[in-house]
């Protein structure tokens, strides 16, 4: 039986695959970082959908917020790395 959750998961998986094409193909590093950020936001949405599937939404929302914070920290770290690399090469 096809439920609404199947539809959600399939849609988000297709979206993630589109982002993943950008991560693998992307000509510059910045394309890859943006693709990874998009994948992380889709992972957060998937986590909240899982939470509503389990009917423990308040717990999964906390974890989704933790993921979002991790995502921000990861993006900042990559940005700092690239900045330091550029100033070193100049």
């Amino acid at each position, binding site marked *: 039986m096809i*439920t609404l*959750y*199947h539809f959600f*998961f*399939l849609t988000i*998986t297709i979206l*993630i*695959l589109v982002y*993943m094409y950008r*991560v*693998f193909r*992307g000509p510059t*590093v910045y394309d*890859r*970082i943006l693709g*990874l950020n998009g*994948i*992380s936001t889709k*992972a957060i949405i*998937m*986590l909240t959908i*899982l939470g509503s*599937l*389990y009917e423990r939404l308040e*717990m*999964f929302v906390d*974890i989704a917020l*933790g*993921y979002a914070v*991790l995502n921000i*920290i*990861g993006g900042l*770290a*990559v940005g700092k*790395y690239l900045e*330091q*690399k550029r100033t070193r090469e100049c």
Partner: protein
Amino acid sequence: MTLFDDYLLLLLSVVTALGAVFVRDLLSGVLTLAAYSFFLALLWAGLGAVDVAFTEAVVGAGLSTLFFLVALFLTSHQEEVHKRLQVRMVTLGSLGVLGFLLLFGSVDLPVVGDPESLPSKHVSSHYLRKSLEETDTPNVVTAVLADYRGFDTLGETTVIFTAGIGCWMLLRRRDDSAT
């Protein structure tokens, strides 16, 4: 729990793992590995092990990505391939044997959530029934980790703390970087 989303997450994690192996630029490899960790954490959450999922997200997607980035910053981020065919065949063969052994061992694992399986019969029922009155902790996982296995957790924490001090000693920025 439907198997459908499990299969989708497994597909995504396999795709990202293959991409992390085969991508040539090492920085992209690190980023793809972070995405792989996210999907693995989602799989753990789907199996109901939310604390494991959070550890996987923090360590796999956060901390190890940072360590790889620092290592890449200190070296180059292009992969140099100069392996001979013989070495590649040995690597492929040993990895194949390892994968066969792991799959062979996983045949005997009990079904997820099976009440008749050996781990569910031993001490788990005692933990589930008695942990609230014995330890006054509402979360069973916390009670097991911090109370029943307290010495074990203390040892793990000591090991992780020592490893953290070692990484800090290796990676800290020195003031005499002008040389």
